[in-house]
């Protein structure tokens, strides 16, 4: 086995996906489907060839670029992204002859490739290139929805993500200027501007509080299949970058705790179930960020493991909601209900996903989230452990119960439809299997993590605590719904922090812009007046265009030559 593997050349994983994207763009029908399914497998085959320590370097403008750097941290994300790409591609197979199928498949492959490029990048410049590619390749998944809303949301998504890239590049260049190194390794907050810029760039992509709005704004506007990809890559690349560069930064601990708590409130009152999942995503990333902030080997392992699990179970939940949207055209809690009759398999999958995200014993998050929680206690962060516990209960409520309840049960909405297409069911099935496999056989999975730390998830205390939490959580929700106190699903718009810059900010800009315009007009007319009278030019009568952009008579062109010659002679003599 290993000898036949050695015959394979070392190829950076992103290259295989980019080649796949090219094929997906050129081919049609069955051939394209074959490419979509085979590309992740081919990529996985070449992944076997990569070992910790494999690196490629190349010189570029005096910097040492490392387009390929393999270690245990990048490897596990590499495997994760291959798995996510496979699941996503299978989930999207039914697009077939759809008008926008080509662009979605190509974009998804490029997007997955960019994510792989970013995790195997060994220097900040390479990271920057893939960081920006992530934004540019994925925005088509949002635009492909084809609505005016998605077009606008896509633009906002693009602007924020490109801004994050610009911050990253500025930070990287400043850092190179200061330390002479562009290595993508541990950075930490050393008080330099460069480190803050880089942290901010990572923070935007991982959805830090107040920087998170692009995520909840755009993910629900993407196509049913697009959201599955979006949920897998961008934020997880950012988590990976944080784990590599800012592990053990105390600030992240607090940021993470805030991230786990605040989205819960929004998720409870939100009606669009895919937006609920987007908020829930920030909440889950909060656990990872907190783990990275704790910084112990167990905590970072936990953050990485939880990222892995989250891609799969959050993907699974987005897939079930995507299936509902695909079959019924609706995804608002107030419009749905009673779908378990017509979509029993999807409903089952959704419950598995919900159980995983709520950390039921024998499901994936039970293993991974508890690593972070245990690490928090081990490192003596008792007061932060409590909000994390609260957030866990919140997860159960908004993702574990709300999603399946409102979509598949609750009051019968009267919608009768068919079960989702087979490829969707297969993709959901694979994801569900992985969720359960991690929950039941954690040993094999834990061995893949970056640090060697012995951890036993199934202890009596842990199982009991978690079960109690879950049972009482379910009880509470049941009581609330029975008594009618639970916030009903109503079609409404919830104001988040982005109101400040999308409405208030825009109004301020308009007001300020108007002021500047008035001043500008006044200044310009004054200057024109001056030119008009002072130089005696017939500036008027040359049309409405500005003085610099219209056609000048030849005579005045020559005058400029004379003026410049005069100035030159004056300066030289």
């Amino acid at each position: 086995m290993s000898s036949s593997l050695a015959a394979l050349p070392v190829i950076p994983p992103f290259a295989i996906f980019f080649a796949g994207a090219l094929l997906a763009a050129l081919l049609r029908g069955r051939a394209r489907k074959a490419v979509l399914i085979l590309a992740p497998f081919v990529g996985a085959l070449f992944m076997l060839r990569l070992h910790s320590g494999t690196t490629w370097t190349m010189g570029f403008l005096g910097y040492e670029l490392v387009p390929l750097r393999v270690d245990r941290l990048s490897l596990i994300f590499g495997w994760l992204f291959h798995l996510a790409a496979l699941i996503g591609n299978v989930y999207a197979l039914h697009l077939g002859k759809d008008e926008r199928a080509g662009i979605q498949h190509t974009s998804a492959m490029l997007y997955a490739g960019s994510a792989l490029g970013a995790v195997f990048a060994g220097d900040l410049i390479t990271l920057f290139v893939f960081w920006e590619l992530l934004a540019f390749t994925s925005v088509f998944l949002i635009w492909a929805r084809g609505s005016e809303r998605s077009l606008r949301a896509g633009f906002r998504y693009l602007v924020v993500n490109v801004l994050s890239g610009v911050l990253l590049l500025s930070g990287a260049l400043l850092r190179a200027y200061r330390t002479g190194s562009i290595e993508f390794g541990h950075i930490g907050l050393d008080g330099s501007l460069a480190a803050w810029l880089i942290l901010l760039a990572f923070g935007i992509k991982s959805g830090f509080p107040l920087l998170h709005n692009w995520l909840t704004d755009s993910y629900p506007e993407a196509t049913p299949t697009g959201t599955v990809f979006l949920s897998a890559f961008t934020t997880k690349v950012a988590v990976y970058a944080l784990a590599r560069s800012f592990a053990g930064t105390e600030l992240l601990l607090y940021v993470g705790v805030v991230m786990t708590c605040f989205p819960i409130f929004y998720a409870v009152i939100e009606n669009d179930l895919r937006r609920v999942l987007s908020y829930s995503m920030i909440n889950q990333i909060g656990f990872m960020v907190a783990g990275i902030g704790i910084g112990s080997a167990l905590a970072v392992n936990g953050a990485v493991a939880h990222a892995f699990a989250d891609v799969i179970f959050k993907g699974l939940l987005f897939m079930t909601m995507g299936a509902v949207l695909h079959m019924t055209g609706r995804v608002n809690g107030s419009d749905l209900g009673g779908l378990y009759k017509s979509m029993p398999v999807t409903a089952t999958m959704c419950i598995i996903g919900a159980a995983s995200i709520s950390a039921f014993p024998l499901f994936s998050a039970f293993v991974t989230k508890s690593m972070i929680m245990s690490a928090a206690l081990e490192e003596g962060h008792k007061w932060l452990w409590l909000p994390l516990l609260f957030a866990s209960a919140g997860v159960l409520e908004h993702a574990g119960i709300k999603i399946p309840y409102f979509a598949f049960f609750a009051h019968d909405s009267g919608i009768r439809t068919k079960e989702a297409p087979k490829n969707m069911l297969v993709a959901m099935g694979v994801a569900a299997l992985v969720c359960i496999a991690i929950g039941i056989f954690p040993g094999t999975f834990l061995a893949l993590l970056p640090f060697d730390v012995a951890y036993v998830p199934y202890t009596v205390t842990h199982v009991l605590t978690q079960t109690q939490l879950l049972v009482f959580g379910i009880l509470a929700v049941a009581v609330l719904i029975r008594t009618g106190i639970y916030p009903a699903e109503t079609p409404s718009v919830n104001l988040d922090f982005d109101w400040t810059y999308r409405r208030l900010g825009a109004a301020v800009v308009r007001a300020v812009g108007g002021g500047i315009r008035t001043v500008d007009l006044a200044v310009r007319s004054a200057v024109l007046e001056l030119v008009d009278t002072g130089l005696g030019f017939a500036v008027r009568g040359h049309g409405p265009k500005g003085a610099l952009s219209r056609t000048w008579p030849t005579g005045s062109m020559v005058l400029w030559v004379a003026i410049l010659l005069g100035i030159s002679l004056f300066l030289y003599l």
Partner: protein
Amino acid sequence: MSQHLPVLQVVVPLLAAPLAALVRRPRLSWLVAFLAALWAFGVAVALLHHVLSVGPISYHIGDWAPPWGIEYRVDQVNAFVLLIVSGIAAVVLPYARASVEWEIENERIPLFYTALILCMTGLLGISVTGDVFNVFVFLEISSLSAYALIAMGQDRRALTAAYQYLIMGSVGATFIVIGIGLMYVMTGTLNMADLAQRLPAMEANRTIPVAFAFLTVGISLKLALFPLHLWLPNAYAYAPSTVTSFIASTATKVAVYMLLRFVFTVFGAAFSFDVMNIDRILTPLALAAIVFMSLSAIYQPNVKRLLAYSSVAQIGYMVLGISLASVFGVAAGILHLFNHALIKGALFMAMGCVMYRVGSVRIEAMAGLGRTMPFTMAAFVIGGLSLIGVPLTVGFISKLYLVRAALEQGMWPVAVLVLVGSLLAVIYVWKVVEVAYFRQPIGDGSIREAPLSLLLPTWVLVLANIWFGVDAKLTAGVAIRAAQTLLGVGS
């Protein structure tokens, strides 16, 4: 044969020009022109290879030794410029066949190609020669043929544009010849190397600064330095597509080369920058060009005119690099010379494709072209990204060098203005992209993708934008060595 390369670079195209007129058949004259361009490109590649591996070449016309005879002198700097001019010509000519047949009446096509080859010959001649009067002669050859080429545009305004260019170009050429004359009176020589030796002794004489002023202003006019650029926007906007693609990526570049040659080789960096302080004029004008011309570009309703304004701004970047007078700065200028030729060549050729199918290059005519002409607009987008300076394109390499050169001298505001220029470029490129991709197509849906003979050359340049953006070793290496040669350091 190989020792005659410098003269063959010029003589063969010069002889091909009348041949193209004599054959009188459009296709045949195109073939003559194409072969001449290929020949020139081959010779330029051989010359660059020779210069990089062996060293500068000095060729004596008719075996008359300089400084009495005319010397052709090729070093890293002009070998690079020769490569740009002939390379662009070799890419533009395959493109020209279909485009010219569509834009120009049949009986004038042979004359068109004659003028085109003459223009290329003139530009090559300016670059290759080591004799200042020869520079003037070739300048006139290239300029006169350029006026004729521009006047052949379909738009009636092409005539006035050509007329204005004629007047302004002649003023510039006159200034240059006055400068040359003054130097000749003082030193009695026209050979560049000889001049460089004799001039330092006469620096105190007032005639030399006057000669310097006439030369720099004349050249500034030819390279369209703000505010002497006024002839350029209309000339580029209304000329035939082929002519715009060729001239925009070569003519101003050769003028920038002339500036480099006179400022650094003939007068010397010490005189130009320490005594004359030419940077006091060049730096502010270059910065003004970058900011104001990018702003003007934003408001243009005609995309070719928009790109023309952007060209004036881009020339600002080149002159800015040169005015820094450091190895990095001059290298950035030379690098952008090459890179901008690739960028604008690709963009103007994409606009030629649009012209060919749609018949207009006004912004509103681009509506929906992202769907009806996907390859053309994709070429425009990549060219536009390169113009903005997105990583993995040549534009990024140029800006990186320029910003580094500015920071090296602690000129933070200059670096900021360079980036502001990039932001403005985002706006004017986006204007076109938005209309092309986010608006419904107008008309009866009869617009199709441009033919392959137009698309292939366009994409050659587009791919070159990416190729040299990813692997900048060759271009940046040559630019650094050329800058070292000009400044007389290192190498």
